[in-house]
C-alpha cells in the first residue's frame, strides 16, 4: 500500500478549486462593499441625489431584470448536481446572455441622459454598474468555457469546475441584488 487512507470522518467534499473561488468571492465582496460604501458616502455629502438635471434612476426594468438573473441560480444549481449538466448550463447561459444584453443596452441608454463626467453621482453610478456588469461578463465567459469543455465529455476536473463556477454565479447574483438596490435606492427614498 502506498496511499494515505481517506478518513471516513472527513465529510467535506468541496474541492480546492471551490476554495479558490471562495477566496475570490471574499475579496470581490470587499471590493463591492467599498464601492457601495462610497456610493452612500457621496450620497450623504450631497443635498440633492441625483443632482438637479439628472433623471431619477429607473426602477421597474432593473428590478425585473434582477428577477430574471436570480432565476438563473436554479439551472446553475441543477448543473452542479446533474449527470448531464450541459442542457442546464446552456439554459443558464441563454438567460444570462439575454440579461447581459438588456443591461448593456440600458447602460448605453442611461449615458444618453447623463454622463459620469457631469457629477459625482454619475461617476459612482456608472462605476458601480460597470463593475457589476463586468462580473456578469466574466461569468458568461466561464459558462461558455465550461460548455466547450463538456463537448469533450465529463471528467472529475470538469465536475469540480461546474461546482466552483456555480458558486461564482450565486455570488454574482447576490452582488447584483445589492448593487441594483443601491442604484435604485434614490427612487425609494423620496
Amino acid at each position, binding site marked *: *500500500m*502506498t*496511499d*494515505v*487512507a*481517506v*478518513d471516513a*470522518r*472527513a*465529510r*467535506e*467534499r468541496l*474541492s*480546492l478549486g471551490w*476554495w*479558490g473561488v471562495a*477566496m*475570490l468571492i*471574499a*475579496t*470581490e465582496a*470587499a*471590493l463591492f*462593499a*467599498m*464601492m457601495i460604501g*462610497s456610493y452612500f*458616502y*457621496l450620497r450623504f*455629502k*450631497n443635498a440633492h441625489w441625483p*443632482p438637479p438635471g439628472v433623471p431619477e434612476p429607473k426602477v421597474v426594468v432593473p428590478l425585473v431584470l434582477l428577477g430574471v438573473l436570480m432565476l438563473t441560480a436554479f439551472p446553475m444549481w441543477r448543473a452542479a448536481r446533474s449527470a448531464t449538466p450541459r442542457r442546464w448550463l446552456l439554459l443558464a447561459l441563454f438567460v444570462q446572455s439575454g440579461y447581459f444584453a438588456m443591461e448593456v443596452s440600458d447602460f448605453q441608454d442611461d449615458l444618453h441622459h447623463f454622463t*459620469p*463626467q*457631469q*457629477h*459625482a*453621482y*454619475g*461617476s*459612482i453610478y456608472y*462605476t458601480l454598474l460597470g463593475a457589476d456588469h463586468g462580473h456578469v461578463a466574466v461569468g458568461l*465567459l466561464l459558462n461558455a*468555457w465550461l460548455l466547450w469543455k463538456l463537448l469533450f465529455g465529463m*471528467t*472529475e*476536473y*470538469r465536475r469540480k469546475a461546474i461546482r466552483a463556477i456555480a458558486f461564482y454565479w450565486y455570488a454574482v447574483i447576490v452582488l447584483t441584488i445589492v448593487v441594483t438596490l443601491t442604484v435604485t435606492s434614490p427612487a425609494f427614498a423620496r
Partner: protein
Amino acid sequence: MTSTVAERVGRLERQWAERPGVLGWLTTTDHKRVGLLYFWTTLVFFGAGGVEALIMRSQLIKANNSLVGPEVFDQLFTVHGMTMIFWFIIPMTTGAFGNYLVPLMVGARDMAFPRMNALSFWIFVASGIFLYIGLFSGFGPDAGWFNYVPLADRHFDPSRNIEFYTLALAFNSIASTLTSANLIVTILKLRAPGMSFNRMPLFCFAFLAASFGLIFALPSLSVDLLFLYLQRNLGFHFFDAAHGGSSFLWQHLFWFFGHPEVYILIVPAFGIATEIIPAFTRRKMLAFPLVAIAELLVVFIGFGVWAHHMFATGLPSTTLVFFAGATSMVVIPSTIQVFAWTMSIYTGRPKFRTPLLFIVGFIVMFVAGGLTGIMFLAIPFDQQVTDTYFVVAHFHYIIFGAAVFPIFGGMYYWFPKVTGKLYFERPGQISFWIIFVGTNLLFFPMHIVGLLGMPRRVYTYPGDMGWTSYNLVESIGGYVTAIGILVLFANLVVSYFRGAPSGPDPWHGPTLEWSVPSPPPEYNFAVIPTVSSAYANWDSDDRERDGHRLTAGVGTLERGHEQHVSSLIDGWTAEIVDMPHASPWPILLALALSLLFAMLVITKFMFAAIFLVIVALTLLGWHGKEPQER
C-alpha cells in the same frame, strides 16, 4: 512486490524533479523555488528602498543642503515608502517566508495553487519594474505613499507620475491577493493528518491572519486607485468637491486599507517570533491559545480604527473620540503577545543566539513604538504632532523595529534549513548590535526633532531651528544601520560558501520543517507526516512512526504528483489530489498583464483591450491540461 525505502524515495525524486537551468526557474511552481525567487527579488527592492533612504538622510544631514532638489526628494520619499511596504515587507513575509515555510510547517508538498503561486511572483516582479521605470524616467510617484487628493489630482500633478502610482500599486495588489488566497487555502486545506486547528503552529495562525487581512483590506485600496485613475484620465468626479465628490473619500478608503496594512506588516513578524522563541528557550510558547487568538484579533480590530490617521482633518469630535477608543483596543491583543513572548523567554532556558537577539530587539522596538502609538490617542497631542518627524519616528520603530527585525532574525534562523549550512555566529551577533544601535540612532532623535516642530517631507530646513545636530545624528544612524545590514548579508553569503553543514535540525526546532533534510527535497516529505501537537517535531514518537511508515510504504503518495487534502477543522484526510507541475503559463500571463497595465498608463485603451483578450486566451491555455484522474 514491496519496494525498498530507496526505491520509494527515488520514485518521488523523479516525479517531483524540477527542470534544470534557467528554464526551470522561469517555469517553476515549486513553493520553495517561488519562495526563493521572492526572497532574492525582494532583497533587490530592499536595496533600492535603502539607497533612497540613504540619499534622503544625506540630503538632510545639514541645513540648507542641496544634494537633491525638491522634485527628486518628493519622488524619493514616496517611492521609498511604497517600496519598503509593498515591494519589501509584504512580499518578504508572505511571498518569501510564507511560501517557503507554510507548506513545510503544515506538512504539505506544495501550496494549494502552485501555478497561481508562480503567477503572483511574476506579477510582483513586473509591478516593481513598472514602479522603477516610472522613477528612472522622471515620472516616479511624488505625492507621498498615501497620495492625498487634491495634491494627487491632475490639476496639481499633471504629469504621468501618479499613473505610475495607481497602476503599479493596483498591479502589486493582484500579486498580494493571489499569494494571500493561496496561503489561506493551503493553511485551511493542506494540513497534515491530525493537525487540527489547535495543533497548528502559531506561525501559521499569524500568516492566516495577515492573509485574511490582505484579502479584505486590499480591495479598499483597489477601489481608491480605480476612482483616482478614472478621475485623472476620464474626468470622473469622486474626489472633486465642486462636482459633488469629496477629497475625504480618498482618505477614508485609503486608511481603511492603510491601517490593517500596518498589522499585515507586523503580524507575520509576530509569527516568526513565535517560532524562534521556543527553539532558543527550549520551551513551548506560553499562553498558546491566547497568542493564536491575539494574532487574529489584532488584524480584526485593525479594520475598525482607520480614522485615527485623520485626526487633524476636521472630522467631528464624536468620530474622533470613537476612533480613539477603538484604537485603544489594539493594546489588548498586542499586550497579550508581548507578555507571552517575554515570559516565554523569562521562564525558558534562553540561548541568546543571533535569531533570538533579533527577537529581543524586536520586542524592545515594538514596545517603544507601541508607547508612542498610545500617545496619539490623546487627540490634541496627535493634532500637535501630525505631519512632524514624531510620526516618522513612531512608525519606523514599528515598521523597522517590529517588522524588519524579526525578518532578519528569521533569515538567520531558517538559513540552515534553506541552504544546509550553518551561519557564523559571532558576525551574526555583531550585525545585530550594529543594526540595533544604528536604528536607534536613526529613529530616536526623530521624536525630539518632531516635538521641536520639524515637519516631515521637507527636502531641507533652515540652520537656525535647532534641528541640525539631531539630523546629523539621524543620518549617522542611517549609515550605521546600512553597515549593519551589509555585515548581515556578507555573513550569510560567506556562510553559504564556507559554513559548516547544518544537518536537518541544528536548533532542535519545534515545527515540521526541521523534520526533513536541509535543504528540503522537492517533494518535502517522503511520507505524509501525522501530527498530534503544535510542536510536531518535538513529538519524537510521531516522527519515529513516520520512519516506520516510510519503510512500510504507508502514506508516501508516490503514484504521481500527489497531495493530500484535509478537512477544514480537524485535519482529517478528505481527498488525495494530483497537483500541477512546472508550467510556462504563469510567466506568460504575467507578461500579458504587464502589457495591459502599460497601455493603461499611457491611456491607449484600444491596445489595453487587445491585451485583455490575450490575457483571456492565456487563461484558456492555462486550463487546457487537466490533472490526472485518480
